[in-house]
């Protein structure tokens, strides 16, 4: 037994094991009689096991994928996951309603049959007003998918119209089918934009106010100039006044220099006297 497991493990590390062999390894490590030399791997395989069970039980993941799928936003990879999920035997109860649809898509993609009985049946139910929410979702997704049977084409516009109607009647939820995260993100974005617009407006307002303030100041000076001020308008007069003003400045200036001289001379005199 131990030797066989060692062999299988070697194969496993090489990635050459078949599904059955891997199952055997799993069973071995989940059992209680593990050989000492294999004990070190026990943790690893137990972890793998938990991981795989977690993945299959994460119905929420599938729910999210389905949400996306109805909006026709899934990537090819995600659609493959969904397909695999619905093909598997571990379908959650609440997803059983969609099995038929995915089955139908699967068949369609394989044989391209014109059998549209599933959708026909759903549509009939829909016209009677007997469809459940889930079945309506299936219909919506079908008409959004773009792979519509010719016989159903006239209804595509109707479902399109329903969709837009839904968006119009709830303007606060223009993107009602968006994942919540994204919606919040978009709202934040628009907030940021509002703030930046505000700051721009504020900057312009401050600038204009500043300009008006400065302009008013200049204006005030000009105005008061005209009220009580004699503005010289004759060059000869201007020259005469300037000459007189300069004369006053220069005499006063010379006075200050002369008084300095006086002080100096007084000092000199006293110095001479003391000597």
């Amino acid at each position, binding site marked *: 037994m131990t030797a066989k497991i060692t062999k299988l493990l070697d194969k496993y590390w090489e990635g050459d094991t078949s599904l059955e062999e891997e199952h055997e390894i799993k069973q071995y490590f989940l059992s209680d009689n593990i050989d000492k030399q294999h004990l070190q791997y026990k943790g690893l395989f137990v972890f793998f096991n938990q991981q795989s069970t977690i993945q299959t039980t994460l119905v929420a993941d599938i729910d999210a994928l389905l949400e996306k799928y109805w909006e026709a936003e899934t990537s090819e990879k995600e659609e493959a996951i969904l397909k695999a999920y619905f093909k598997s035997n571990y379908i959650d109860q609440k997803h059983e309603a969609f099995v038929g649809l995915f089955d139908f898509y699967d068949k369609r993609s394989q044989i391209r049959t014109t059998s549209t009985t599933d959708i026909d049946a759903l549509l009939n139910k829909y016209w009677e007003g007997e469809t459940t929410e889930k079945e309506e979702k299936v219909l919506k997704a079908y008409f959004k998918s773009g792979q519509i049977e010719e016989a159903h084409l006239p209804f595509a516009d109707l479902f399109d119209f329903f969709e837009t109607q839904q968006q119009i009647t709830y303007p606060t939820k223009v993107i009602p089918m968006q994942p919540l995260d994204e919606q919040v993100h978009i709202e934040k974005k628009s907030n940021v934009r509002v703030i930046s617009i505000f*700051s721009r407006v504020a900057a312009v307002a401050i600038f204009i106010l500043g300009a008006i303030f400065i302009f008013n100041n200049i204006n005030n000076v000009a105005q008061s100039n005209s009220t009580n001020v004699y503005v010289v308008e004759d060059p000869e007069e201007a020259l005469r006044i300037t*000459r007189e003003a300069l004369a006053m400045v220069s005499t006063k200036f010379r006075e200050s220099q002369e008084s300095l001289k006086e002080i100096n001379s007084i000092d000199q005199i006293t110095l001479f006297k003391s000597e």
Partner: protein
Amino acid sequence: MKNVFSIIMMLFIGFAAHAQNDAIESLFKDYQADANFKTVYISPKMFQMAYNATDVNDEKELAAIVKDLKGLRIMSTEKETSKIYSEANKRLNIRTYETLATIKDKDTNVKFITKETNGSISELLLLIGSKNKFVLMSFTGKIDLNKIAKLSKKLDIDGAEYLDKVNSKK
């Protein structure tokens, strides 16, 4: 946001610079509003015309000074002179302005205040306060004190008449 902030900062800096010039500007403004004051204003354009009117041969030194002058404002009053002198003196105590000289006679105060930009005097303020006369003069432009000092002897005779008017004691 950064841009907005820098614009606001620039505006504030602009206002601060504006405010310093305003100290003198507002002083003139206040006195202009006072009916007891006589104000004479010569604009830069008038200085240009005055320079053209000078007889270059006859008044070489004067022409050289007038050429660089941009503006002249003279304000005078004969009421409450000592009070106005001390008030103006206080208000003109601005950091960017420097007191060049102060002369104190018996009852006459004279003060020269200058503002320097780029190593030359760009504004010259002359404050004269006596018992019955207060005069405030403001020259703007490029002012060369040496040229003005040289001018004094020649102008003494011409200026005497005006000086007698301004300072009747002399």
